[in-house]
């Protein structure tokens, strides 16, 4: 009976030790990775996927209305001369 109790205590002790090692290793890993990552740890998506690039390209106004705008701005005045 006494032997069984001792064995139980030993198991608790070992499990506690393993858990403590795991927790310490986890904390050490977390702080180490934080110092290595620094500012670069932020997400890198940064708006450069092909969908976003396509949208950026499509949004550029290449001056399709140039002639129309020129005519609207100048023609009435020129014809009035």
């Amino acid at each position, binding site marked *: 009976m006494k032997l069984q109790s*001792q*064995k139980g*205590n*030993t198991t608790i*002790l*070992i499990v506690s030790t*393993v858990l403590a*090692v*795991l927790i310490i*290793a*986890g904390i050490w*890993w977390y702080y*180490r*990775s934080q110092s*290595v*990552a*620094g*500012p*670069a*740890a932020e997400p*890198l*998506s*940064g*708006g*450069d*996927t*092909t*969908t*976003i*690039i*396509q949208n*950026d*390209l499509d*949004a*550029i*106004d*290449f*001056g399709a209305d*140039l*002639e129309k705008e*020129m005519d609207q*701005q*100048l023609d009435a*005045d*020129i*014809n*009035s*001369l």
Partner: protein
Amino acid sequence: MIKKRLMNISPKFALKILILAAVVLLGVNAIQVNAQKINEARQKVEEVRTGLRNAIKIKQEEAKKQIEAVREQVKEKVKTQREAFKEKISQMKDERKRQTAERLEEQLNQINERWTTHFSNVLNQLENVLAKIEIRAQKAEVNGSDVSSVKTAIETARNAIKTARDAVVTQAAKGYTVTFESEDKLKDAFKTVKEQLRKDLTGLRDGAIRNARKAVQDVFQALRQIPGVDKEPTATSTPAGTNE
């Protein structure tokens, strides 16, 4: 008490515990190494991004200053012609026509200024898109993809943008003044100058600006050909051509 308990542990059991602890530590270390590789890849991409942003900012500021400088030069250059024009229209009897002619002469140069600024902004936007493509290509390279075709296309696009910037400066350096013999020929004189301005601006848009746009689109097409191009950098692969 603890010492006594530890003495009761069988060697076989202790060995099992030691193996378990070793496995746990090896696992933690593997995660740590993997995280470091990811961070290195990210830092490399971040360096490229920062470098590109700074280079683009400097280039765009220079382009802006260059255009402003040529505008000042052109104002000086056409000053005499503008004065001659103003002198001539001041002799016109019709007050309304005189005001219209003055306004039109100013508008012609304002239109040139507005559209050359617009095209300069278009080139800025194309440069920004090109930078995004370059960053994405860098990420693909970190992931082990071959991006040589994209790099070649990027160089072509940069040259096309440079050519277009020069063309914008050339256009910005043009001054539009109207010369006319007599009052009845004023309308035709304005029509001629307007057509010249229209021809110059559309020529710029459909020439150098369109070429720059096509060159950037070609880079984008080359980028899209890369399988899994939108994948973020991971530590499972080695960047192509970066082994030392």
